[in-house]
């Protein structure tokens, strides 16, 4: 268990600025996610924390001590890679035991620990299987076991679920969360899937183009985004300009550099005649809700209505009237 402090960390590859100077503080035992679209620098940041990449500026502190100059071998940080990076010429046992052998642990102790962790990830019966013969999900669990078994101070995940199919992804992410609770280890988790980040994390840092946009709990980010990027990335919020708000929704007090972020479930649809008229361009039934896409002033507006709601029923091509929940006051900065 450990804290992680990043101070003024930045990284440039030749001409490319992958990370702008940023600060991050991860608390002891916390499940912390780095969330952002492809290419925003998540992997780079993770590799800097692990020591596989050195930062262009700034300091990495683990448990208060400066490890910036320390090689990855000496940081005692566990990593699970996106492609698992198992050692293909070894069995499950050999893969998991590798880090313990490096530490010159006695054989009986190695066996005990490996079997213990394999039991936790439900792979005991595969202990002597060569890893190329495992399924994707099993390989993924071996990768987690291999990283956890050496009892690292912090655990890093780089999009560990992106190679699994949807059902397995949901199942495995619950497993990861359970294991993390059990072991109580400080975890930094990289993903570009906002659902995954919301479900797993204690706190999330939103990254875009190498810049931290906002750090907060899932709840804060969802309901109180600071800027337009966070609002649309986390909550798929619709963004309305100051003029549109005043003219069509009667919402006052936005400055020119602000937008109103409205979550899809906060938009009310009706067949009344009103000022804010739009046309339904798509309609999808997703079980608990019906998801409408509406052409409104050349903007595509998303509106989710509970499917139990009977007061409104619109078909594709028909006109609808939009209005907002009176309580919506979510002003965000333009980018």
């Amino acid at each position: 268990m450990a804290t992680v402090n990043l101070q003024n960390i930045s990284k440039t590859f030749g001409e490319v600025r992958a990370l702008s100077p940023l600060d991050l503080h991860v608390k002891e035992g916390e499940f912390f996610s780095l969330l952002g679209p492809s290419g925003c620098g998540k992997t780079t940041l993770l590799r800097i924390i692990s020591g596989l990449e050195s930062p262009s500026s700034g300091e990495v502190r683990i448990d208060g001590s400066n490890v910036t100059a320390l090689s990855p071998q000496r940081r005692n940080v566990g990593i699970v890679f996106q492609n698992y990076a198992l050692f293909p010429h070894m069995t499950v046992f050999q893969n998991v035991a590798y880090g313990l052998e490096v530490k010159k642990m006695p054989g009986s102790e190695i066996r005990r620990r490996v079997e213990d962790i394999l039991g936790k990830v439900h792979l005991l019966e595969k202990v002597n299987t060569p890893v190329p013969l495992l399924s994707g999900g099993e390989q993924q669990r071996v990768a987690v076991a291999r990283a956890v078994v050496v009892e690292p101070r912090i655990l890093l995940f780089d999009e560990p679920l992106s190679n699994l199919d949807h059902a397995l992804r949901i199942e495995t992410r619950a497993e990861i969360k359970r294991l993390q609770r059990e072991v109580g280890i400080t975890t930094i988790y990289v993903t570009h899937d906002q659902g995954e980040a919301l479900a797993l994390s204690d706190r999330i840092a939103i990254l875009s183009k190498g810049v931290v946009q906002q750090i907060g709990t899932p709840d804060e980010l969802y309901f109180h985004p600071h800027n337009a990027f966070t609002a649309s990335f986390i909550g798929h919020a619709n963004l309305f300009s100051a003029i549109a708000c005043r003219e069509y929704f009667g919402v006052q007090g936005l400055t020119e550099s602000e937008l109103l972020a409205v979550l899809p479930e906060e938009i009310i649809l009706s067949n009344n005649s009103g000022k804010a008229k739009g046309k339904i361009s798509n309609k999808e039934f997703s079980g608990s809700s019906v998801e409408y896409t509406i052409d409104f002033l050349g903007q595509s507006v998303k509106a989710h209505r509970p499917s139990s709601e009977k007061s409104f029923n619109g078909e594709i091509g028909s006109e609808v009237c939009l209005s907002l929940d009176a309580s919506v006051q979510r002003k965000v900065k333009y980018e």
Partner: protein
Amino acid sequence: MSSASRRITPISGMMLFAVVFYAAGYILFPMYALVKESLMGIGQLSFEPYRQFFRSSLLEASINSISISLLSVLGSAAVGTFFAYVFTFFEFPAKSFFSKLVLVPLALPPLVGVISFLFLVGESGMLSRVLALLSGASPSLFTVNGWTGIVVVHVYSFYVYFYLFVSSGLSQLDGNALDASASLGATRARTILKILLPMLTPSLVGASLITFMSSMASFSAPFLFGGATRYLTLEIYAAKLNGESSSAAALSILLLTISVCALFFLRWWQAHKQYLLSSKGTIRVSAVPHGKLTRILVIFSAFALVSLFALPIITIVAISFVKEGSWTYQIFPTSFTGKNYLHLFEEPRLLEPLLNSICMALVATAGVVCLGVTASYLINRKHFPGRRLLEVILSLPFGIPGTVIAVGLILGFNRPSLFSFDSILIGTFWIMPLAYAVRNLPLLYRSTTAGFEAISPSVYEAAETLGSSQVRTFRKVIVPLLLPSIVSGALLVFINSAGEFVSSILLYSYSTKPISVEILSQLRLFDLGVAAMYSTLLMLMVLAVAAFSNRYSRATIAT
């Protein structure tokens, strides 16, 4: 692909007949002739020729061949793997230029490579004499011959196999596995030993086997550099020259057995030992971090080695401008002239070997393309019994030393037979193109088959559902898609044939003397300038072909 289109039609039946006729007549029949000659050579069944294996001189030749080949594997592995490692994991100035220089030995016909070494570190080699002058020691300290000579030349000629295999292994390697090892606390040495090397085993074994086979089959190096060293290929050659046909045949069978075993082992290994760990997602081959001193040392030695490896070529080109008879006791030649090249056009006698080689190589290439493409088409796209067997037979010559193929052809076609259409081929124009074709068909077969494998079956189905007849599908769809593979294979066949020495020296007749044999004659006459001039022409040919092939493949990818 529909099963109907996999059936043999009358046309494909005729094609199949031609391929089977070729396989039976020019691969199996010569081998049969070898066996027959070794057993029945003296008129009745006798194992006498095989007993000679236990004669000390032949035992020595076998032991030499095997030991020298093993040493060549070790040496080539060290040099080739070192280069592959450096070029993958280090960044340094002019890297792409140096990475091309590393491939230089590929462009050298074997004979030319050996000769360049003769000029450099042979008995009165320039490099040895310069080194002696600088150090004050006797030049003999810096000349290589016998075992060392052969191994040095082999390492120079064969390290490229390791370089290519290991480079490709490294480029497919999951760099994250190395990172994972580091973050689990492993030292760099441990990561290299326990993770990197085992993951490269398939590449290393593949390259080792090919190097071993090439060394066993090597003829030019022991022939010109070996001094009195006995070598299996040389013993075969000597026995043949002495008219001891049955003992040449028995020796050929010994060498053939070793090589074919290695070939089958290679095949088996490649089929079974693959780590197929599907790794989707982005893979970074991150530079394994190295200390500054290591970096400088490693890069410097790579520079030095690569430059050293370019030296033979520079030497050959320089010597091709040496005036006849002007270079005797001096370390470096003193007077240069372009005469050697001008003579080429003034004296038909000099131009003839060049034209002979080009002509025979063209004939061989044409034959190989027709048969190789047909065979690849039939085996990949048709169902008939014995398909796999036919494929094995057609690829067999890849593992057979050139000396053995030549002796087989001599014994098979020194009398009329069905396959020579009732005439004697030995001593005619046709025997050499035939030998070139037999040796090189596996190359073209491989590249064409790779092309076939890259075409998705749905392409044929699309053509068929559009009502295209099979012949039309073949001409209009398959051939254009395959053209890049066929052309690159054919170019390789052409340059291999044009520079071919091993089988030429056993098969040539004075009326069709090829360029490689002529180089040897000039060398024997101490007309080094002309020998080097021919060698330079061969290298230029290789370069021209390589440049064209590069251009061509880029152009076809672009369209």
